[in-house]
């Protein structure tokens, strides 16, 4: 009912193909950005920033990456965490070997390395589909995890096999407090989301979706499946790698390869499934959901039982709830929260009419 599209007519394709063609959406997005960049810095305390918002953003980025692969190009992957790891360790190593490199370059380098590894492990996707491919990505998961653990070179021969991110700074400003870190991550993530949205509505995005929806037809209209799939793997792993770098540098600071184990891969996959396959907003909704649910459970638990429950129990309940939600969403709405949101929006646009 808030949508009043009458009178919003388009006289150019530029306007009609704008990223947010409807005025009300532009406003909404504007408000959201204002809130994220201006309001939050004022209202959020360090706890919120460093243990909720920053992780949320970093994981959203990873989910965004996986969504490119699974949601848009229809190629399932269980190796997300591995690609994150590659990003993190590549960025770290570049800075260790060449200290004068600014961290942003290092991050991008991390992304690029991750992308190339992603493409490498994407090669099987040309012959195999579905969970066969999932297995291939699992191979990546275990192999990379092992590689980083067993070869000291990657951790710069750290005795305890961990990497410690060097302090961040940009143009002389030290990025050391939660707020500045938050703003940094936010900027990076927003830019990436914007880029993915653009790809999705461009020639590349259509190629991806064509491959996802009907690969035979896609070939018949001249889409090169190999290039398209590998590009998806590349872009996806680039984003995951970047996310990994953020995770290592800003969220954790000190990382061991096990921080990127298969559990993390599943976590990201869940975010995408719950959030919504094939939509940018889905990545964020999913991540938000996965981050907030445990906190919610915790508080609920303590309210119900009066006393705080053992973290173990919480963890187990978490497992169950996540699992249940995955199944629920796959049954009820495979396109996830994002789709639900979309339906609500449709309803609002038609209101009060049912159709």
């Amino acid at each position, binding site marked *: 009912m808030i949508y*009043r599209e*009458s009178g919003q007519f388009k*006289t150019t394709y530029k306007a009609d193909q704008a990223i947010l063609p409807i005025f009300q959406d532009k406003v909404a997005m504007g408000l959201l950005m204002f809130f994220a960049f201006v309001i939050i810095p004022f209202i959020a305390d360090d706890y919120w920033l460093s243990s909720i918002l920053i992780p949320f953003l970093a994981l959203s980025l990873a989910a965004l990456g996986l969504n490119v692969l699974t949601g848009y190009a229809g190629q399932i992957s269980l190796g997300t965490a591995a690609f994150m790891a590659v990003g993190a360790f590549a960025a770290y190593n570049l800075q260790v070997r060449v200290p004068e490199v600014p961290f942003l370059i290092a991050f991008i380098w991390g992304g690029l390395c991750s992308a190339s590894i992603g493409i490498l492990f994407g090669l099987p996707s040309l012959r195999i589909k579905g969970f066969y491919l999932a297995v291939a990505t699992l191979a990546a998961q275990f192999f990379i995890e092992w590689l980083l653990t067993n070869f000291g070179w990657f951790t710069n021969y750290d005795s305890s096999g961990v990497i410690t991110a060097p302090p961040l700074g940009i143009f002389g400003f030290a990025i050391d407090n939660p707020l500045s870190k938050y703003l940094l991550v936010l900027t990076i993530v927003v830019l990436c989301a914007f880029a993915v949205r653009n790809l999705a509505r461009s020639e590349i995005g259509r190629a991806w979706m064509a491959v996802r929806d009907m690969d035979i037809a896609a070939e018949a209209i001249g889409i090169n499946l190999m290039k398209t799939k590998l590009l998806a793997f590349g872009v996806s792993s680039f984003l995951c790698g970047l996310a990994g770098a953020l995770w290592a540098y800003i969220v954790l600071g000190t990382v061991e390869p096990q921080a990127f184990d298969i559990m993390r891969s599943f976590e990201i996959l869940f975010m995408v499934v719950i959030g919504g396959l094939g939509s940018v907003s889905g990545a964020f909704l999913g991540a938000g959901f996965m981050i907030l649910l445990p906190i919610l459970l915790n508080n609920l638990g303590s309210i119900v039982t009066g006393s705080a429950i053992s973290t173990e129990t919480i963890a187990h309940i978490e497992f169950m709830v996540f699992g249940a939600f995955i199944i629920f969403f796959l049954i009820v709405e495979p396109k996830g929260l994002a789709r639900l949101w979309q339906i609500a929006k449709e309803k609002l646009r038609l*209101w*009060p*009419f049912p159709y």
Partner: protein
Amino acid sequence: MSRDFSSLDTFPKILRNNAVIFKGKPSVREKEFGIWQTLSWDDFYKRAIILASGLRDSGLKRGEKIAIIGDNRPNLYLSIAAAQILGAIPVPCYQDSVADELKYILEHAEVKIAIVENQEQVDKLLEIKTKLPLLKSIYFDDPRGLEEYKEEEVKALDEILLKNIDLDINLDEDIDKTSKDDISIMLYTSGTTGRPKGVLLSYYNIISVTSVACELEGTSSNDEVVAYLPMAWVGDNIFCVAQSYISGFCINCPESRDTLTIDMREIGPTYYFAPPRVWEGMLTQLMVRMQDASKIKLWAFNYFMRVAKKWGNDILDKKKVPLFYRLLYGLGYFLVYGPLKNNLGLTRVRIAYTAGEAMGPDTFLFYRSLGINLKVLYGQTEASVFVSLHRNGDVDPKTVGPVFPGVDVKIEKGEVFYKGPGVFKGYYKNEQATKETIDEKGWVKTGDAGVIDNNGHLKIIDRAKDVGKLNSGKMFAPKYLENKLKFCGIIKEAVAFGDNKDFVSCFINIDLEAVASWAERNNIAYSGYIDLAGQSSVYDLIAKEIEKVNEDLAQDKELNDSQIKRFLILHKELDADDGELTRTNKVRRNLISERYGKLIDALYSSENHCYIETEVTFEDGRKGSISADLKIQDMKIIDLEDKVA
């Protein structure tokens, strides 16, 4: 900004001026290839000039006629402008008229050049070409399917437009030559009887009336109007062409017939004209759609519609309304009215007119209660439309409003006469008809029976010649009855009989969409129109409505004898293609009463059913015949005297 139209006394002159003062502002938009392709006033002028010079090259001279046939398309509006620049007279024709209807008009108007929309129209003209020796060239706008045409007189409009596109032509002389008494346009009225007559309207007629109208409603270059009504109909020429010339606002042409609603919604016109049937259609549709809404929505809808019904009009007329109800209405606006208007594309409507037929008070008030300033207008082609018009804050659904500024109206023997600056120059090549219509003092005969009520509003009852007498000697106004019937929403058309009869009876056409959805809701199975129309449950449904009408009539001393005693539901929809309706969908009474004589006799016999076979014309022109055995139902007459006694 109002200009002095004593110097700018013809459309070409105004257009030339617009090209300067409205430079860069949109004059025409067309939704094509998915976006609204816009033509600014200066482009429009430039193209008009190019087209004009092209037409002159192909031999078009002052005073000659040029036919315009097709849906509302920028290039067709352009053609009108071009013709006027050359001092030629544009003759728009109904795009859906069949070949021989066109033949009559093109022959009668001695048309030399026809500018048409598409293949469909070209084919029609080629069909009758041999009978039209004068017709030299046919220009088409949309080349689709016409590449292979070999006929030399068939040419693409683009040929002209593109040929001279970049050389700059000056036709100022021709434009200056045009004078206020030149014929601006010739419109054929699809008269309810006989052959169509060519109404000649001068620049003076149109401009003088239209400028007043614009003044009255304060139209400006920021207004938006959607052009969807036939170009051959006077309304389109006044509300779209003339007023956009004078106020400089933009005409928007929809993409195609089946996208009209979407396009309406996108544009959101600020100035909207629609005949009652369109408004009613919209309302029926809306109600049908609401039927399957969820409980809560439906409740909210019904509740707030009640609120609107109670307070909406007063708020619209700026009357005093308790604060609480203002707030409630505001809430309703957010939840229901606003979204509704938005869905119908009426959010931005400032000025809304209806005319041509009487409109159901309920429908009328429904739209007003939504905050849409809907007003009734009474007019005629012969008057350049405006005879009377509701004023803001002084609206009465039962009337057609106070007389229009500058127009005089008198009632003689119950019939309405008017005179004013808009009065037409006469019928083309039809002196005698002209004489019959305008007397030497300039009074024009409307042929409508009406009265002026005590707040100075004109009230139209019926066509004067249709007003007859029952054998009881009481007045019989069929149109009045028919409209009353049609207001109920499930009756699409009705034809009442009773002149020189003992009682009133009528034919009914059910509104398929409305009745069908009713049938679905009451899960009544039916195979098609004929079947549905024949169902006794439908008969009962209609009978209920007629009963309401009868009760209402019983109140009125003059009309209480006009209560409907018997009726039947026709087995086919009355159709313009079969000549039963005019192109503007007015009932052709005589034709119907001769074609269905058998049924009428049955109505006045003791029969309770009647077999009939009728010939019909399908969309594609093929002829066929359908037959049915129609049931006749009796109604009981309410007599108040009895009740009193």
